[in-house]
């Protein structure tokens, strides 16, 4: 029997902690360990290079785990489960597309920019396109990172609400203070080692409690949650016959690819992790660890979403939309009690900390390094590091203020950030690495067109102007990418090639020769490489049907 319920506080199952002592103890110990590692690592910080990319000394295993934690974020515990419970299987496509991003970063530009010794994609833009594009890129990075961090702050505040029963606003500002203080203490060095630890806390906090949950749900493969619940599928198909349906049409999945696979490629907090590698070789090896540990984590989280839907169906419970984010906690309260749920909450906090610290360091690097360098300000190394600290504190405050009025799902602002990144950042970086024919005129035009298109078509900014999609697709702001991405690439290519033909603009593809050779690891032998316009023209032609497809009503 279904018992429709509209809001938290009225459900016939446990929603918050009855006993706080053990959960709070677990979380306090975890914070002490993070602060301890940060404090210990602080002695290694002697300049901005140490603060922002850990002196480029991190090995593949630590980095693979740290990348995974940064990449997964709090959304893995809360937003993903929520959307899987609501959207069901199609959301798997979202997350598997996301999984592509790290290998693609390494293949498409991570190793080349690591050779240049870049802090962020904006550092690369300064070398490749000049100061103006560097400032545009730094501003885009700050915007995208703020949007992404917004989702994390909302989620962390919701965790504090569940844990302490505090008001949302109080929870938000306590969390903002804790997170900002944590990032200020040790920069990327402490954050890298902490993120690796945070990943393993996240994995165990999802994996081990799910063993108990699946066991009690009657799964014979409970000891391996990622793939052990197959024998529950027939019952799931009876209670939720459409759970395994893909539901949406081809275009929805293609839009997801553009936003979720190509968007994160432009995300500086992910690329920055590759730049912390001790060598290009170590950066490449990072991908192996990343795919291995992230695959394990994701498959475990799918089992959480499956069990959540299965449990709701079995018990006849309904949960209000806004509370789907808390499903993993409800499930653990119901099957495992307060102590184990305390560890699950610790895992969620670890996920939020790892990602938001990456965002804040990316903002810090954009402000304290890229903007200062772009304007060629004469600033000492100490002062630069101080600017970095100030940028982190400022970012914490801004995000906390933005999070006062949150969207219904915490994933919404994150998906929006992905769309902007895919349209305004990714093309500029990837084509800048692989073609000597693109230039600053194309790059600036492309970033502005990509950014403006997403903003105009997004339901979260102006509203009222859509790209033709309705319902969830439009609500998530994903439909805009079907127009913004091809438009951005077309602008980039056309403007770059036209600018070459205008003498007064002084565009000379050969001026990039040494930079292109250096970033790809070729000798400085005065040979022009990656200078053909044909691949650019083919790419531009391929964008036309995508643009046409995106413009059609969904």
């Amino acid at each position, binding site marked *: 029997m279904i018992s429709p319920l509209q809001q938290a506080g009225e459900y016939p199952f446990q929603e918050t902690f009855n006993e706080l002592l053990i959960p709070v103890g677990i979380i306090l110990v975890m914070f002490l360990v993070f602060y301890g590692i940060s404090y210990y690592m602080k002695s290694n910080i002697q300049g901005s290079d140490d603060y922002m990319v850990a002196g*480029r000394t991190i090995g593949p295993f630590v980095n693979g785990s740290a990348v995974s934690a940064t990449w997964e974020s709090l959304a893995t515990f809360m937003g993903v489960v929520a959307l899987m419970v609501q959207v069901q*299987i199609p959301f798997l496509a979202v997350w598997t597309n996301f999984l592509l991003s790290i290998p693609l970063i390494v293949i498409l530009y991570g190793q080349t920019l690591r050779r240049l010794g870049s802090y962020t994609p904006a550092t690369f833009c300064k070398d490749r396109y000049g100061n103006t594009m560097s400032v545009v890129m730094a501003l885009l990075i700050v915007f995208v990172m703020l949007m992404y961090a917004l989702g994390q702050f909302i989620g962390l505040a919701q965790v504090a609400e569940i844990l302490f029963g505090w008001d949302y606003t109080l929870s938000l500002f306590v969390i903002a203070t804790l997170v900002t203080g944590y990032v200020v203490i040790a920069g990327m060095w402490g954050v890298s080692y902490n993120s690796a630890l945070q990943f393993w806390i996240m994995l165990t906090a999802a994996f081990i409690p799910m063993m108990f949950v699946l066991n009690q749900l009657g799964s014979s493969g409970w000891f391996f949650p990622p*793939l052990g619940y197959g024998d529950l599928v027939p019952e799931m198909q009876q209670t939720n016959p459409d759970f395994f349906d893909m539901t949406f049409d081809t275009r929805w999945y293609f839009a997801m690819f553009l936003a979720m696979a190509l968007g994160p490629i432009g995300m500086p907090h992910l690329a920055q992790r590759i730049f912390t590698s001790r060598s290009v070789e170590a950066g490449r090896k990072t991908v*192996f660890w990343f795919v291995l540990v992230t695959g394990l984590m994701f498959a475990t989280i799918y089992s959480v979403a499956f069990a959540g839907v299965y449990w709701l169906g079995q018990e006849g419970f309904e949960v209000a939309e806004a509370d789907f984010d808390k499903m993993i906690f409800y499930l653990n309260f119901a099957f495992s009690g307060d102590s184990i749920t305390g560890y699950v909450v610790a895992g969620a906090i670890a996920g939020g900390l790892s990602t938001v610290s990456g965002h804040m360091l990316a903002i810090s690097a954009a402000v304290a390094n890229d903007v200062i360098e772009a304007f060629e300000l004469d600033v000492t190394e100490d002062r630069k590091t101080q600017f970095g600290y100030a940028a982190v504190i400022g970012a914490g405050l801004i995000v906390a203020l933005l999070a006062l009025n949150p969207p219904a799902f915490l994933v919404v602002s994150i998906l929006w950030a992905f769309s902007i990144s895919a349209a305004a950042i990714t093309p500029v970086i990837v084509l800048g690495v692989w073609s000597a024919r693109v230039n600053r005129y194309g790059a600036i035009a492309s970033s502005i067109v990509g950014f403006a298109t997403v903003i105009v078509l997004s339901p979260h900014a102006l509203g009222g102007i859509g790209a033709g999609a309705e319902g969830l697709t439009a609500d998530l702001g994903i439909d805009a990418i079907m127009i913004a991405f091809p438009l951005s690439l077309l602008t980039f290519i056309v403007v770059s090639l036209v600018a070459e033909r205008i003498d007064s603009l002084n565009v000379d593809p050969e001026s990039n020769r040494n930079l292109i050779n250096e970033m790809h690891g070729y000798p400085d032998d005065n040979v022009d490489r990656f200078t053909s316009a044909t691949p650019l023209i083919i790419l531009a032609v391929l964008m036309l049907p995508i643009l046409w497809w995106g413009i059609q009503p969904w």
Partner: protein
Amino acid sequence: MQTHTKEALASLVAALALIGVIHSGIWFTMFGTPDLTVLGFPFHYFWLVAGGPVAMFVLYWVYYQYITTSIMEEKEQLKTSTSGVGAADDIGAKAGEDDD
């Protein structure tokens, strides 16, 4: 074929192959999935949860083990032939430190 052309094509093919294996779980379903279960799961679900990531791991290993290595060797030969240019891979890293 010149080394940089080979490098660009290899990177493009590797990227497309990775995208292809992940998306095959989606396309199989869109265009008619065979009525097949693996470990009790419908095939497309299994592929998205486990098959895709494992296939991605294997593909990346092939790219890393064979393609990257052979192209790096060609680059080293180019450097040797032009002589006197240091390895760009070592920027910011200490030589000989490659493990955790």
